[in-house]
C-alpha cells in the first residue's frame, strides 16, 4: 500500500510567553515575530505594542497576524492601536486596518462619526466604506451629514455607493442639495441621479 503512516517529525511548537513575545515582536526572524504576534492574542495589555509593531512590520504575513491578535483582543485599546494605520502610506496596511475594524463592528462603530469628519480625505473615504459594514443604526444619518458638507467629489461618490444600499427615501432632499453643489461635476451628478431613482422607487414600500 502506497499510503503510509508516520509519526510526526516533532516540530517544536514555538509559543513564547507574553513577556518574551513583547520583546521579540519587532526583532528577530519573520518566524519569531509571527509567533510573538500570535502569542499576544490573549494579552489585553499588548494592544498598544501590537499597534506600534504594525508601523515597522513589512512582512504581510506577520502584519496579518498582528491585526488578527488585535481583533481577537477586541477592545477599545485594540481600536486605538488600529486607527492610526488608516493613515498609513502603505495601501495594504490601510486595507488591513480597515478589514480589522470592519470585523469588530461593536467596538469600531462608535468611532465612525469622528472618522467621517477626519481632516484627511483618505480617511473619510475609508470611513464611508466602513459605514457599509458597521451597520450602525445611524450610519445613514452620518452619511447624510457628510454629503451636506463634503467637498471632495470622490468621497461623496463613496458615500452614495453605500447609501444606495442602506439609505432610505429621507435621503432625497440631501441628495438634491448635494447635486446642486456639484452641478458642474457630471460623474457625481450621474451617480446622484441613479441613487435618487433607486431610493425614490423605495418610497411606496416604506410608506406602506
Amino acid at each position, binding site marked *: *500500500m*502506497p*499510503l*503510509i*503512516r*508516520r509519526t*510526526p*517529525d516533532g*516540530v*517544536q*511548537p*514555538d*509559543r513564547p510567553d507574553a513577556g518574551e513575545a513583547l520583546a521579540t515582536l519587532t526583532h528577530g526572524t519573520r518566524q519569531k515575530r*509571527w*509567533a510573538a504576534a*500570535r*502569542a499576544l*492574542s*490573549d494579552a489585553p495589555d499588548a494592544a498598544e505594542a501590537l499597534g506600534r509593531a504594525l508601523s515597522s512590520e513589512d*512582512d*504581510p*504575513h506577520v502584519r*496579518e*497576524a498582528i*491585526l*488578527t491578535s488585535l*481583533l*481577537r483582543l*477586541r477592545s477599545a485599546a485594540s481600536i486605538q492601536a488600529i486607527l492610526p494605520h488608516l493613515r498609513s502610506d502603505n495601501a*495594504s496596511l490601510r*486595507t*488591513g486596518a480597515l478589514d480589522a475594524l470592519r*470585523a*469588530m463592528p461593536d467596538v469600531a462603530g462608535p468611532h465612525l462619526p469622528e472618522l467621517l469628519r477626519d481632516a484627511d480625505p483618505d480617511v473619510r473615504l475609508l470611513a464611508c466604506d466602513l459605514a457599509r459594514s458597521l451597520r450602525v443604526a445611524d450610519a445613514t444619518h452620518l452619511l447624510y451629514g457628510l454629503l451636506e458638507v463634503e467637498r471632495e467629489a470622490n468621497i461623496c461618490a463613496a458615500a452614495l455607493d453605500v447609501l444606495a444600499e442602506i439609505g432610505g427615501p429621507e435621503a432625497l432632499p440631501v441628495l438634491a442639495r448635494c447635486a446642486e453643489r456639484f452641478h458642474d461635476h457630471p460623474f457625481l451628478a450621474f451617480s446622484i441621479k441613479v441613487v435618487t431613482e433607486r431610493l425614490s422607487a423605495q418610497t411606496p414600500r416604506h410608506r406602506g
Partner: protein
Amino acid sequence: MTEEEFRRLCDFLYRRTGMVFTEAKRYYVQRRVTDRMTATGATSFPSYFARLRGDLNGELEQFINVFTVNETYFYREDHQLRCLTTDLLMECVRAKPPGEVVRIWSVPCSTGEEPYSIAIWLLENWPQVDAYDIEIVGSDIDTRALEAAREGVFGKRALMRLTPDLVAKYFVPVGPEQWRVLEDLRQSVRFTPVNLVETGETRAHGRFDVIFCRNVLIYFDDASRRLAAENLYENLLPGGYICLGHSESMSRISPLFEVRRYVDAIVYQRPPGGARG
C-alpha cells in the same frame, strides 16, 4: 442560567474553540450544559463553571465534545477530490524531489469519513498513487469523534455516496447496516487531536502539500477564522493548497492566499517560493 452566565459561558467556549454561539442558540447551549451538569453531579451553574474553568477531571474536553457539530459523510463534495487528483497533486509532485512524502491533512476530520474518502479516492483515481509515499492525517478538536474515526465503523447514511463496489472493496460488514473500513486502510490514516485556533497545536503537525479544511469555519467568527487561516498557512508548504467547504471563501478571510480556479473546484494556494516562507 442567567443572561450573564450564558454570555460568560459562550465567551469561554469562544476563547477556547473559536466557535460562536449567540442568543439564537440558547436552547442548544442550555441543553448541553444541563447534560454536563448532570454527568458531573454539579448542583448549580457556578459550581459547574468553576469545574470547567479549572478543567477538573478533564471536563474541558468533555465540554467541547458536546458542542461540536460532527455532520459528515464519505465523498462529500467529491468535486474537490477530483480536483485533487486531476490538478493539485500533479503540481505538488512536480516540485518534489523523488522519495519525498506527499502529505495531506484533513482538518477537521470529525468521525473520519473525510480522510478515509481521500485515501479511497487516491487509490481509485490517482494513476501515480504507487509512485509516491502518501501520508494522510486526520485531526479534530473532538476527541470522541477521533475515537470513532479510529474505530472506522460506519452506518448506511455515512456511506450513501459510495457505490456498492467501493463499499465491497474497502469495507467489511460488521453488523446490521454497519461496515468497517479495512484494517490496512485504517492503519494508513493517522488521527490526532488539534485545536485550529491554537498555534502551538497546529504547528506541531508540520507542513502539508494539501489541506482540507471544510465546514468548520462556518462556526467561527471573523477573528477565529483569521486565526485558523493564518495557522493553516503556516502548515502549508510553499505552493501548497487548501480546500474549503462550498459555502466558505478564503477571500473574505485572509489576503495571504492566492485563489486558484480549476475545472472542478476553487482552491487557495500559499504562494510558491520561499520569500514569504
